[in-house]
């Protein structure tokens, strides 16, 4: 049995928040925070006492996009593990260059995403 992973979901689509919640809980993982914009994501992340194991990051959001939010969060905590989950194929390289640990293209299969989240959580913290 895998250890429980705590997840912070950043996406502007409410239905996807519900989806992430539903599929993660089934596997015994937990969504501990949600943000609907990059700006909000950085703000919430700063305030969190218990930082999440993994952050799921969308790209296209109303104010601050996922790349900017990734940079913002890594500035607060350079060891934060961010997994990009985006419908934008074209931003993969930019996301990884900005410091994301991985990139998952929508549409994904549930098991693939869970596996990526668990792998990201298991990665050693960066130095």
């Amino acid at each position: 049995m895998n250890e429980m992973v705590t997840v912070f979901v950043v996406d502007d689509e409410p239905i996807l928040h519900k989806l992430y919640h539903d599929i993660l809980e089934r596997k015994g993982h937990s969504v501990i925070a949600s943000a609907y914009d990059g700006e909000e994501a950085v703000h919430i992340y700063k305030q969190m006492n218990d930082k999440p194991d993994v952050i799921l990051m969308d790209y296209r959001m109303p104010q601050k996009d996922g790349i900017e939010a990734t940079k913002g969060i890594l500035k607060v905590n350079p060891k934060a593990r961010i997994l990009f989950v985006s419908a934008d194929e074209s931003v993969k390289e930019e996301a990884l260059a900005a410091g994301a640990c991985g990139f998952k293209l929508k549409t994904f299969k549930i098991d693939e995403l869970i596996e990526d989240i668990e792998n990201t959580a298991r990665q050693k913290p960066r130095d």
Partner: protein
Amino acid sequence: MKKILVVEDESIIAMELELHLTEMGYEVVGIASSGAEAIAKARELRPDLILMDIVMPGEKNGIDAATEIKSEMDVPIIFVTAYADEERIKRAKTVEPFGYIVKPYEDREVRATIEVALYKKEMESKLKEEKNRVELLTDILGHDIRNLNQGILSYMELLLTTPDLPEKFNGYIRTAFEQSKGITKLVSNVRKLLELQKQGLKLKNIDVFPLFIHAIDEVKTAYSQKELEIKCELSENEVVVLGNELLEEVFYNILDNAVKYDRHDTVEVEVNSGKVEDGKYWKVEFKDNGPGIPDEIKERIFTRLERLDKKAFATGLGLTLVKQIIEKCGGKVWVEDRIKGDRTKGSNFVVMLASADGGE
């Protein structure tokens, strides 16, 4: 009033031109007498049009100046010169000028050329704007469809894991799931087609074997209700061709069609390969046992885009993408009957790709 920059090293001609242009209703915002000055003034004054002499003193002639200006801003340039020799016109053409006036000229000739250039420029801008709008809409469409489809696919997946789900429902949901995945595939194909058109392909020597194996895996996962049996003697580092990773899309789409249209539960595809044309090409054949393709549409299934064909022979643009990728690799693709003269026995998709060693 349209702003014109006059580039002319002979001051009397320049002044005369200024006078006439002003009479015609244009505003001459500046006069430059060398290539370097033309560049500086174009940057500073942002004219709507430039009348450019070609032969001028200094390091840069009119063609050099035009090249530099065009790389920085989108302004129509008309060359005005006493020379109309073949070589010079050929060089001038590389800058894509909006006109070429040969001295001595008449005022009405200058006016007509300027008016046509301004009109063409306006149309060009409108076209570019429209193209950007279409590209943006296509991009949003693709992005949002992926997002919407994510919800549909994942909740169907959750449904499939419901305990005691009747077998019949399981089948229904799987079919819906596969259709939904087809939507994502379509979106991805459209995106790839647009990118191919815009940027082309970077070619290199590539072993098709790993791409082929990966494509088989992808098709197998996509059709969980069917068995796919590939008869193939391809091995690693054998078929090395001039191409790109996108060749995986070629294999995927051909196999995907074979599985999709074959009504048997077990789909058999035979894959043969061999060098042809003195070793210049690798010929790879994919023989299926599907319903076959009528002669009348054997060519058209690949050419929807070229013919702007709305009539569908198959959904998804897969074979359109196949043809575009292969042609960008310098290869060829076509379909023939697996058994000559009897198309009901299935199809043979033939792919020709340039071999990496160029043949010997």
